[in-house]
């Protein structure tokens, strides 16, 4: 896993494991993201229903 750093600010970032594909399996990773009001939302809470997820951006 690649490690890059900005030594002056003592900050490093660890990247994902290289090789293969972005998806290691078809199981959705346990992702928790904030909603519009800042509350945490777990994608696992949607189990039991089909989900169409669309990523967008204001830019």
């Amino acid at each position, binding site marked *: *896993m*690649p*490690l*890059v*750093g*900005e030594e*002056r*600010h003592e*900050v*490093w*970032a*660890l*990247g*994902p*494991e*290289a*090789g*293969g*594909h*972005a*998806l*290691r*399996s*078809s*199981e*959705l*990773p346990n*992702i928790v*993201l*904030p*909603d*519009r009001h*800042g509350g945490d*939302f777990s*994608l*696992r809470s*949607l*189990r*039991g*229903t*089909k*989900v*169409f*997820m*669309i*990523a*967008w*951006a*204001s*830019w």
Partner: protein
Amino acid sequence: MTVALDAGGIEAAAPWIDRAKTTHPALIDSTHLLGELLGMVNVPSGIWIDMHGVIVRPPEPAFPWRPRQPSDELLAQLPAIAAEQLREAQKIRIEPERYLAALRDWVARGSESPYALSPDEVVARSRPRSEDLARGAACFELAEYLRRAGHERQATHWFREAHRLDPENWTYRRQAWSLADPLQGPTEDFESDWLTDVRKIGPENYYPPLAL
């Protein structure tokens, strides 16, 4: 559900979410975590997930409809760079009709739909991750952290490094450009801009062909 890949966070995404009056979960991914975990490189990207939490289609271009063509009157009111971008954007190839038909088929038929892929195919169709792409992800994450911490110059350096290592990742480029210039036009911070890069590859190649 929707997820905004937006370093601007809630502040950037909320006006759009509020205006849309969403009734679905509308989340915000300010660190582009989905890009790293799922291999997203452009927006809009769609992913299909079945009732058991299994991905049946990995990230791919997802236009639910064809954007309205801007009128000459509207274009005349915009900054010149924005008008040029919109004109170029009209040449981008998208296939909303086919995508929507496939999506509706899966919604109705679930695992019986031919558009629901097997687990092996989902993985195989997800983005290959080379050493450079993995390192690019780390650079982008570092850049974002530095930017939030107020270290703009260092952040720009790591954004540029992410762009160099992952030149096909439009989310990395567009996010960084937008932070330097909301119109994503030419700046001193970056070697290129949206319009220049789209014209370089050809707008018809901005998204990969839809492989249903």
